[in-house]
């Protein structure tokens, strides 16, 4: 038993860190340090820098452009990105659609789509959820009818993250309405410029424009864009959702935010002294740090198991533990950041300031310290974390069934 990183892994971490330091554009890092999401241009620029280095898709097999890393290396790489902080490779391309195309797509699809996914020439978005199909995803109704060389798609998707940036969408559609719920679903790739697609922004409670409704009105999708077998799309969906192993733990992101929180707390006065000297506040911070330390060890255990069984895609119920704890911690940190800002948290500001509601207030140092801007927005926005990716209640259902035998 040896619970430390090996010397090779430590050297790898140094290599990644120094690459990030030398290549991450300063404006991107600055923006992310302030708790804001990177802009579209910043995400694209960074992913292309990573792609040039061969690091755009940590988890992909080497034959499709992956770097051939061990599970530990992939984890370290993603940690370092979060700690920097730097944008992660775009999840829709690299962790959702890409792996499905690699596992289920044909040769033409792989050659056509994968290189452009890697280089973020195409920005993908995810067309899974519908107004009537949230946690019960297999209840989806968007219909695709085969007519000659095309599928005609009609229906509505919702919660489509960053669809306003997207060039392509991967879709779950119902191709056999008479089959059992999971058995009549197919996985389609669709160009967002196809006539009949309408994207309508959904402004979330903090005022940001992150998610959208996407309407399909007689949209013609070439039949060659079907991934895998018709009516077997649920296999793709399950594969995609099961791919999520450590993504939701986001230990590095929480570490970076806690370090930031302590910096802010040191500059904020309460009861005549820095907030860092308020034992009540710091106790709350410390409780979260402890949970995070435990979570990091839990991630390590999952990595160690994964490294012993390389290639296994067996869903590990510990993933649910990571999701529940990881999101609880992130939400807790976002709340403490907001609290640390005191009265200045209440300036209405979209943390991303990229479009969104016109109610929000532009950043202005006369109104509030720059570090306070948007902290409440992140807190409000991050309530989503325990809802998406299989709500934390769904995770408990999964654990009860798979782990506990209930």
């Amino acid at each position: 038993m040896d619970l430390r990183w090996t010397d090779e892994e430590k050297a790898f971490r140094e290599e990644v860190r120094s690459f990030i330091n030398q290549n991450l554009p300063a404006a991107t890092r600055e923006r992310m340090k302030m708790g804001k999401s990177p802009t579209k241009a910043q995400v694209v620029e960074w992913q292309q820098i990573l792609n040039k280095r061969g690091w755009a898709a940590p988890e992909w097999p080497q034959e499709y452009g992956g770097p051939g890393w061990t599970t530990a290396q992939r984890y370290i790489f993603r940690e370092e990105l979060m700690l920097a902080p730097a944008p992660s490779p775009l999840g829709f391309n690299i962790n959702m659609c890409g792996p499905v195309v690699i596992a289920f797509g044909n040769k033409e699809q792989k050659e056509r789509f994968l290189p452009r996914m890697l280089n973020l020439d195409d920005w993908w978005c995810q067309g899974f959820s519908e107004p009537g199909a949230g946690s019960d995803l297999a209840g989806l109704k968007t219909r695709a009818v085969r007519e000659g060389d095309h599928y005609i798609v009609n229906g509505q998707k919702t919660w489509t993250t960053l669809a306003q940036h997207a060039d392509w969408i991967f879709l779950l559609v119902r191709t056999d309405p008479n089959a059992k719920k999971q058995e009549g679903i197919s996985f389609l790739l669709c160009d967002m410029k196809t006539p009949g697609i309408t994207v309508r922004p959904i402004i979330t409670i903090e005022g940001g424009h992150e998610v959208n409704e996407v309407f399909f009105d007689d949209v013609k999708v070439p039949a060659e864009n079907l991934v895998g077998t018709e009516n077997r799309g649920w296999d793709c969906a399950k594969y995609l959702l099961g791919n999520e192993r450590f993504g939701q733990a986001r230990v590095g992101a929480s570490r970076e935010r806690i370090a930031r929180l302590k910096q802010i707390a040191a500059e904020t006065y309460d009861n005549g002294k820095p907030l860092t000297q308020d034992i009540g506040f710091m106790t709350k911070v410390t409780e979260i740090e402890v949970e995070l330390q435990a979570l990091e060890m839990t991630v390590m255990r999952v990595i160690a198991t994964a490294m012993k069984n390389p290639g296994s895609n067996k869903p590990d119920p510990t993933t649910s533990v990571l999701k529940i704890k990881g999101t609880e911690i992130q939400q807790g940190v976002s709340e403490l950041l907001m609290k640390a800002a005191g009265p200045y948290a209440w300036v209405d500001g979209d943390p991303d300031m990229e479009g969104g509601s016109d109610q929000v207030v532009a950043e202005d140092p006369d109104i509030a310290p720059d570090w306070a801007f948007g902290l409440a927005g992140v807190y409000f926005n991050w309530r989503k974390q325990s809802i998406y990716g299989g709500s934390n209640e769904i995770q408990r259902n999964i654990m009860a069934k798979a782990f506990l035998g209930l």
Partner: protein
Amino acid sequence: MDFDLSEDQRLLQDSVSRLLGDKYGFEQRKGYLKTPQGWSAEMWAAYAELGLLGLPFAEAEGGFGGGAEETMLVAEQMGKHITLEPWFTTVVVGGGFLRHGASAAQRAGIVPQLAEGKLKLAFAATERQSRYDLFDVATTAKRDGSGWLLDGAKGMVIHGDSADMFVVTARTAGGQRDKSGIGVFLVDAKAAGVSVKGFATVDGQRAAQVTLSGVKLGADAVLGEPEGGLPLVDRVVDEAIAALAAEAVGAMEAAHTMTLDYLKTRQQFGRTIGSFQALQHRSADMMVALEQARSMAFFGTMSSQDADPVARRKNMAAVKVQIGRSARFVGQQTIQLHGGIAMTMEYAAGHYFKRLTANDGSFGDADYWVRVLAEAGGLIAAA
């Protein structure tokens, strides 16, 4: 990074698990509790035979040559069966003082007997005013020729009523809450001026009030520096915290398993109660708490060996906080999900709950350590 056990470690784990599986069923435990000393002399002999009493000592000194990982494995099994014998106080705490504080000559006089089961140790540190601050010491040790004269009273000395020898903290210099001026002494339980009043604790263990009045000790009774004993205490306590964490994980796992079994068999409203989502989710939350605790027990085992006392103490504080929080939640929910049956003395669940509660309180509870850690700046530095 590698969480796998070596062949020897697996063997150790299996043999302890087999021994306790055979001899430490809940009904058997009730029998051990009823003996006058409150634990099983037969089990004590079996531990000695298995090498568990000599576990952390060097083989050359009559020990088994185990390290922190071996201690973790044994402690976890002890927790699974909520054992009653003074293994933790004698081997982990007492043994820790011998390993880190005693001279080779001092060890030679004690370790072989200890490993054979003929000598038991207890740690006498807590005083009426000290609460969890082990540096808060009013008991005095005054120079007496070449030796020492001890006066004071120590409370809540776990397994103090069966100990043959006490490890006693006493003030050799400075004020009551000074961190320097603390000495650590080995005191024979039968020495003149030592009186011991034993009693039962809530978790089925034993403890004692130990009074020291004019106890004369030789120069060879001191462990380490007579005025600089606190770092030794801290080091031993940090190792003890790691073992307590593993013990708690064993007890939590047993409590959780017991709860799941009950949910799968208990019928109400014409179906098993485990089919109700409210109870499923609660047991999933118990699982989360248990996994976080298990992770921190590993972390504690690793961190307890850190040579840097400041980093080590912070990490061990974090271990104590997580284990305490998890133990409380798992313990309370074990009772709640069972319902009334778990409120009865004759059912095992309540005994696990009580031990988990006492485990949290051993060497400072989670509230104590979260304050210590917060005052030390936490685990993560400011950006």
